[in-house]
């Protein structure tokens, strides 16, 4: 694989991380604008998206590696498991739904589609990785250093905001199945 192809792969990783950050920001928008308290499965899906972003950011930081893609796989599997569980909970007519909808599909359905898409994209990334010629010097992180810092701080801010809001919702215990508000005070 030529250096320019590797640069393209790194850029694709950066775009992927940005898309994942946007998904999490949309989830926050629904949480605060519609005053929806996220359920435990919704929070697990958010964590899964952050894990996927984490893996892509590692590719940007340490260069393209198959092991980083496999970390993203783990995050995607966790998201798929939790979103599929939530879809199945509401699949029977009359069992109701949870949260808002975009284009008449609920967020957990979109979450399943997005994580499945991530799995497919990771397969393409791994295929690119297998084509990598070890003799070419990898541009790795130095090429996209400013982009890396922007994405890292974005994901870090999202992760810290999630930590605070989850603590206020559940404290340090397991989250209730039907959360009603934010009973725990931060200070």
């Amino acid at each position, binding site marked *: 694989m030529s250096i320019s192809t590797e640069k393209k792969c790194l850029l694709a990783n950066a775009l992927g991380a940005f898309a994942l950050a946007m998904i999490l920001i949309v989830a926050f928008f629904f949480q605060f604008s519609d005053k929806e308290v996220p359920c435990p499965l919704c929070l*697990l899906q958010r*964590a899964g998206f952050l*894990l996927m972003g984490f893996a892509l950011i590692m590719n940007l930081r340490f260069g393209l590696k198959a092991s980083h893609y496999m970390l993203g796989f783990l995050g995607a599997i*966790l998201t798929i498991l939790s979103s599929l*569980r939530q879809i199945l909970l509401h699949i029977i007519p009359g069992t109701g739904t949870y949260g808002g909808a975009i284009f008449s599909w609920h967020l957990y359905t979109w979450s399943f589609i997005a994580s499945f898409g991530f799995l497919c994209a990771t397969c393409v990334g791994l295929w690119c990785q297998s084509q990598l010629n070890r003799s070419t010097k990898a541009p790795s992180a130095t090429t996209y250093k400013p982009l890396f810092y922007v994405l890292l701080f974005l994901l870090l801010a999202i992760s810290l905001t999630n930590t605070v809001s*989850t603590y206020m919702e559940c404290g340090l215990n*397991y989250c209730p199945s039907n959360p009603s508000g934010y009973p725990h005070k931060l200070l």
Partner: protein
Amino acid sequence: MMALLFLALSAGLFSLLFKKRTIALTFFSLSVALGLLILWHHFHFNSLKIIL
């Protein structure tokens, strides 16, 4: 428990800032383990409710 998961994730992302790969991987593994534990707890608790 979920807050701890997000805290571990934040710590892992923060360690990337200083290029600490091993620490980042440790926090990543901790987050995945916590996530699977919470998911298992969710399945187990709800399955028990249905059976009982």
